[in-house]
């Protein structure tokens, strides 16, 4: 029976509903002690001295470290610009400068307070438009030129000293496009958009447990997105050979891009080394929100050339990613965000300058939709504005501009398994696009909005898996793909069950542990179903090949004539068969052993991609695949309080093949929920010193159930346009579900009350302000 494509229950579910699932926060080791970090209160300061003596003398304190105790290496994703503990300078409030391990978390916290750090305050720099100047008021990284960089950025006559990323797209003749629009009665539509500060705010805070063995090797338990990225990072930070580092991933309480690196894990490891004891570090919620990487804002200046019939012929974008003290995991965002500028649309000319700059705020990181969710806000709001300007229905306008299968986008990505049209129309039907919203009694207004989105999955990338077959014909999949809640373990299990024709409960998953499970790049970029799924299928094939070869002599048949299913190996077209068990022999006192070798299938799935030229954005196929989706919202806006309620929400995404339809529905609803939070409620706020002022789950407002539409008004639509390289045709679903949400809601607000709010989130305060401005000027502020 086919298991792929059915909504099997999640295989890690029993542990999760009974409270037996062990998360990093739950781990307790003998003699384990607890770490806390001493953090900088200044956004920008020189460290003149650190006195840890008082802390060291406190009873119960086992180790105190500062940068002096660590190897002097700079870390980073592609630009190595950051020390584990601040070296001679701090560049954001909350940057760790020292760490303590003590018998209890309370003692560690008290000891941190006893550490005296002498700072010389420097002027902070917060404004990205100041930061990008050639002569900025403040330079964050004086030694930038000396840093190791693993990625080439666009050539510039002179690099602004705070700039760490520059990327350009030069496709077609942009000047000609604007001229044509002007000359032929078309439109030039130019607007500025901004996104806000968003945090992953996973329910499980960041944390790790570190333990050293007597042979000098380190084991780290950390609920992160990639044990191999973690292993590599730990090895670099602590100057160890990667083979000395073992990373085990327990259950993970959410990640969403926020758990790619294990900085606090490396600090815990260093403390554990010094203390000679296992060390646990769990960030407080305030630290988690204020001092771990966030989705930092973008500013987009976008200018479109459109014919009078609403055909987009040219687009010019300048964007700045408002980075923080370090480039961090945000390093590729100025590049990957550009994927959405053509998105699903045909664009004869595209001109982009995209930058990332340092400021003295929290560092930029990944968050579901890496760059695309941000640029979609600008692009899909533009599309709505264009539609209104041209007086063409917003769905029709988008359809008129869509690419067709096989065409290449303006960034040379082939449009394959191109489902934008289907997503859009199904979504529009579900929200009854043709029927305008009912009017409500003042001060409430209703309106509908729609938006389209894409999410690429990056390349180059690779996943390896191993598949061991046991004597009872059960299979054990060893993978370093991580289940962050998205259901990866379940889907991989389904694949194995399907490939071997066995039941789900005959598949055992060996979860990520770098001592056992093979390389997998990362649980990110919507890549696990696609890449690890492929690797898993291939490992199954490899194991089945071994089985066929082993069985061939017993069955006196050619291996190619054999098939393996349901624990039996049979000769095609005949009744001759044996059991998998027959490939094993009895060993005295030891049960059964494989007659020859262990049956272990191994495979690596790899997608190569040649890097695009950072000066033109042109090259070969730049990504593994491109996913599509559309979302629509009906909102109710109260113009007096500014409250926006989502009355109705539809999410239609193309997953190629729904490996587990309920799992896709969970992404549609769950992503919708996060998308609604990002659009309306979530905003990291900072005071004039650069300190976050709402670093709690009380004040940083991820949605509660009440912010969601009633169940009957939530709709999940699954579109299946198979991808030629996807396992069973599948593509990922994890990120596309938050890409169109903000513009869909913003467009709905416009439909309801005729005002545009250009900067996310669309908070009640901004709604009231925009409405009042509109009343005062007697018309809408939308162009």
């Amino acid at each position: 029976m086919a298991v792929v494509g059915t909504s099997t229950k999640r295989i890690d579910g029993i542990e999760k509903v009974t409270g037996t699932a062990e998360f990093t926060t739950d781990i307790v080791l003998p003699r384990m002690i607890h770490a806390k970090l001493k953090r900088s209160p200044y956004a920008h300061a020189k460290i003149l001295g650190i006195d840890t003596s008082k802390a060291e003398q406190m009873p119960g304190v086992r180790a105190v470290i500062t940068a002096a105790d660590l190897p002097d290496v700079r870390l980073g994703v592609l630009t190595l610009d950051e020390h584990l503990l601040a070296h001679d300078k701090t560049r954001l409030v909350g940057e760790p400068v020292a760490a303590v391990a003590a018998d209890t978390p309370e003692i560690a916290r008290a000891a941190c307070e006893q550490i005296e750090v002498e700072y010389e305050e420097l002027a902070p720099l917060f404004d990205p438009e100041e930061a990008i100047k050639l002569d900025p008021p403040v330079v964050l990284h004086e030694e930038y030129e000396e840093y190791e960089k693993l990625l080439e950025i666009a050539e510039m006559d002179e690099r602004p000293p705070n700039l760490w990323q520059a990327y350009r797209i030069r496709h077609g003749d942009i000047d000609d496009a604007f001229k044509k629009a002007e000359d032929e009665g078309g439109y030039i539509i130019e607007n500025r958009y901004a996104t806000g500060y968003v945090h992953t705010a996973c329910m499980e805070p960041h944390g790790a447990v570190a333990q050293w063995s007597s042979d000098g090797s380190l084991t780290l338990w950390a609920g992160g997105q990639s044990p191999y990225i973690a292993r590599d990072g730990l090895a670099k930070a602590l100057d160890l050979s990667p083979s000395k580092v073992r990373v085990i991933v327990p259950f993970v309480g959410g990640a969403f891009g926020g758990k790619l690196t294990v900085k606090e894990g490396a600090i815990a490891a260093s403390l554990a080394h010094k203390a000679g004891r296992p060390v646990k570090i769990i960030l407080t919620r305030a630290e988690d929100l204020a001092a771990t990487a966030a989705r930092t804002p973008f500013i987009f200046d976008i200018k479109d050339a459109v014919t009078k019939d609403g055909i987009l012929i040219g687009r010019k974008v300048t964007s700045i990613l408002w980075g923080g003290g370090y480039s961090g995991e945000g390093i590729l965002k100025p590049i990957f965000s550009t994927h959405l500028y053509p998105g699903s649309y045909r664009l004869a000319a595209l001109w982009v300058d995209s930058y990332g700059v340092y400021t003295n705020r929290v560092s930029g990181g990944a968050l579901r939709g890496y760059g695309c969710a941000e640029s979609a806000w600008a692009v899909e709001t533009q599309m709505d504005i264009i539609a209104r300007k041209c007086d063409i229905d917003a769905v029709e306008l988008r359809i008129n501009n869509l690419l067709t299968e096989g065409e290449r986008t303006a960034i040379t990505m082939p449009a394959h398994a191109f489902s934008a049209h289907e997503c859009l129309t199904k979504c529009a039907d579900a929200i009854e696009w043709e029927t305008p919203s009912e009017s409500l009694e003042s001060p409430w207004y209703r309106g509908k909005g729609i938006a389209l989105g894409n999410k690429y999955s990056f390349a180059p990338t690779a996943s390896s898996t191993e598949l061991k077959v046991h004597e009872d014909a059960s299979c054990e999949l060893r993978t370093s793909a991580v289940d962050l809640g998205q259901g990866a373990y379940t889907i991989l299990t389904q694949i194995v069950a399907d490939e071997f024709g066995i039941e789900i409960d005959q598949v055992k998953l060996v979860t990520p542990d770098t001592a056992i499970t093979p390389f997998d790049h990362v649980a990110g970029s919507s890549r696990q179903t696609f890449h690890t799924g492929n690797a898993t299928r291939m490992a199954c094939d490899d194991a089945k090949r071994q089985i066929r070869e082993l069985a061939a002599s017993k069955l006196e048949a050619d291996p190619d004539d054999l098939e393996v299913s349901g624990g039996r190996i049979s000769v095609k077209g005949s009744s001759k068969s044996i059991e998998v068990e027959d490939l094993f022999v009895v060993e005295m006192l030891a049960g059964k052993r494989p007659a020859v070798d262990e049956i272990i299938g191994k495979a690596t799935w790899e997608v190569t991609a040649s890097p695009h030229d950072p000066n033109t954005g042109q090259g070969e196929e730049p990504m593994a695949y491109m996913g599509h989706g559309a979302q629509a919202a009906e909102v109710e806006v109260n113009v007096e309080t500014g409250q926006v309620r989502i009355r109705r929400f539809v999410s239609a995404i193309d997953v190629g093949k729904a490996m587990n339809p309920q799992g896709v529905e969970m992404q549609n609803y769950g992503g919708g929920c996060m998308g609604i939070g990002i659009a309306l409620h979530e905003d990291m706020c900072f005071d004039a010193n650069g300190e976050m002022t709402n670093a709690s789950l009380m004040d940083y407002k991820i949605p509660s159930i009440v912010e969601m539409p009633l169940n009957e008004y939530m709709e999940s639509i699954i579109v299946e346009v198979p991808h030629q390289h996807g396992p069973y045709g599948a593509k990922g679903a994890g990120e596309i579900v938050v890409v169109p949400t903000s513009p869909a809601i913003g467009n709905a607000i416009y439909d309801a009350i005729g005002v545009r709010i250009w900067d996310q989130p669309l908070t009640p305060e901004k709604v009231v302000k925009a409405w009042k401005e509109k009343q005062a000027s007697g018309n809408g502020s939308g162009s």
Partner: protein
Amino acid sequence: MIDCHYLEPTSVSEACTLLVEHGDGAKVVAGGQSMAILLRNGLSQPSHLISIQHVTGLEDINASSEGVTIGAKVTLNRLNGIGETHPTLRALDDVVRGVADQQIRNFATLGGAICEAHPASDITVALSALHATVKLASANGERTVPICDFVTGAFATAAGPGELLTEVVIPSFDLASAAAAHRRFALRAGDYPVVGVGAFVSLDGTGNCEDVRIVVGNCSGAPVHAQEAESRLRGNSIVGNNGALAEAGELAAAHVSPAGDPMAPSEYKIDLVSVLTREALEEAITRATS
């Protein structure tokens, strides 16, 4: 680390004695819904915690001709629906439904909600509009303080050392011609409000406003009385007079100068004061006339 003692008196007088004995280092714990967090995060480091969990006599709700008396330990959950049994308390009922969540309401006490003196407290706003008084017991006896004088600022009350809040008294009024209501706006369900407004109105025989109270929460350390707005209405026709109510809203807004909160700058809070004042008045008038 702090050395902290935990004491469990069983009577009000015992509790008061302990409070005096341990002076500044003593801290009352009622439901713990605010205290536990402060203690856990080291933000409060008392030498003695005086739990009133086993203190008897603080859990009654009694009605007399003078009004309704609610014991300090009555939980917010028990107050849910109080407007049905004691219609003069509908404004308190308005509040209780919106405060935090059921987990918190199950254990949060009325006394704790008042004594916490959170600037955004809904409870004190509603009780101020209702002209409630609180009874404070101490080794020297008892005193009664109007709630608007009791909460003196953000996290500050007029409770002297050794004083325990024992009761809240909400005076009765003529339901045929008077009523109160509370309106709040929060950025998310379950959160403290951005602004809350409590309003009380009483009407004379002609439908004019005889008395009115407008109390605004989270625009200052303690609830604020919007006196100009009250004056605008007192003695004037208010039933069905939307213009007057809107004006009162604007006067209330003009009266406050709140500090901004994250995501709710001062200007926005002022806008909300105007809207919520009008709405609370409308609702109070509707109640008074039906």
